[in-house]
């Protein structure tokens, strides 16, 4: 069973008599520790696909199964806990220090303010943004915003991160280190599904998919070796 299974998902948007199909019969499997990128032009359906995969939007057809549970039928939302999602960049609501925003997820889970703040600072160190903890959010540049956004998602130890265009708005020289960070997170076991608007956003990923007109192409399932357990010998000679 895959960590995430998007199964024959279709999503339509209607405006009056007009209808646009954003995602067409898309299927996709993601395993733990995989780094998967979806390349697509604007209005290709890439962001819609990611929102559906994260359970933010419900498909009209098909289903999304995360850790064995249908996201549409789950009573308790996994979003923000087992599954982290962020859009292009981190946007803080209201004022406050960066470390407080990062720790907010833990405070919501009734951690003590002291522990939440300590964990927040640890995560900022993990994502290479330890110098940002004492700054206001509006003081961050593009790369710092992206790193802080990732730290905010990691605070609840999710098994899957869904990130819409992580390198958008990030300086060119800062993009590869950011992608290396996502690679390292995947290497530690947290799967990452992200979208990319350029070739750079695809470098080093495990699978590079493309989406156009809502149709997803590429290796839609990971290439894994199926381990067949050895059968116990049936003759009594080997039994004790």
């Amino acid at each position, binding site marked *: 069973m895959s960590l995430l299974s998007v199964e024959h998902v279709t999503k339509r948007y209607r405006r009056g008599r007009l209808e646009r199909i954003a995602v067409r019969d898309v299927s996709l499997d993601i395993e733990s520790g995989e780094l998967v*990128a979806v390349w697509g032009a604007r209005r290709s359906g890439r962001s819609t696909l990611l929102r559906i995969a994260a359970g933010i939007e419900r498909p009209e057809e098909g289903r999304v199964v995360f850790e064995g549970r249908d996201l549409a039928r789950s009573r308790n939302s996994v979003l923000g806990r087992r599954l982290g999602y962020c859009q292009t960049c981190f946007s803080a609501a209201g004022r406050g220090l960066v470390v407080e925003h990062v720790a907010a997820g833990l405070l919501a889970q009734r951690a003590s303010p002291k522990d939440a703040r300590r964990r927040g600072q640890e995560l900022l160190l993990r994502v290479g943004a330890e110098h940002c903890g004492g700054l206001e959010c509006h003081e961050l540049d593009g790369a710092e915003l992206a790193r802080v956004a990732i730290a905010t998602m990691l605070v609840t130890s999710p098994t899957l991160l869904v990130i819409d265009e992580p390198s958008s708005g990030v300086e060119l020289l800062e993009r590869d280190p950011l992608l290396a960070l996502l690679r390292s997170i995947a290497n530690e076991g947290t799967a990452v599904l992200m979208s990319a608007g*350029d*070739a*750079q956003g695809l*470098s*080093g990923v495990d699978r590079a*998919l*493309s989406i156009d007109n809502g149709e997803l*192409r590429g290796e839609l399932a990971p*290439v894994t070796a199926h381990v067949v357990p050895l059968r116990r010998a049936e003759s009594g000679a080997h039994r004790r």
Partner: protein
Amino acid sequence: MAVPGEQLLEQGGADLTGSAALRSQVACAVLGLVIEKPSHGYEIGQRFERRFGGFLRVGRSSIYAALGTLVDAGLIEKVSARSNTGVSQGAKAGACYRATARGARAYRGWLAERVRNDPQRVDMLGRMTLAGVHSVEAALDFIARYEQECVDEARELARPSGSAPSDCAGISELVERLLIEERRRMIDAQLAWITYARAELRSVAVESSTADAQR
């Protein structure tokens, strides 16, 4: 770029994808011409001369050899001149050839790969594309394959990591990074072209279907 399955087939000795036959540019050009229009060998030779004469200077024997190779690979097939194939009658005597479905798929796959790997031959490839991809649907299929080739190549373009142990190594790493960046930007341009080409092709398809509906 061959998919793993294709590589396995080739390693096993049976080239079920026809990729071995498409190692020759002449064979590729001939396949494109057969896809464009089922023809006799003689007529294919004439069209080859008109279309590719300025790029590939080969004799008629090479054309017939290419036809034989393509038949053996199952990419084209011989048909009777009396069958309903659209083969022009009255041409000089000889077998008539038409492409198989596998041949059409192999050709599009070959085109997508070559366009990526051989950007300096755009003129030649443009002529081949015109010969073998002659419907909007086929062109969109070709573009989808081309796109996947591009994103696969972009995936492989990971920058070297780690600190340089010396100034000399630092420079060489920088040069490598710059070369990777150059290739990435070329891929971005290719992907931008793909987006543009799709929009153009779809608008043509919409105009065509609208015209059909009004008739």
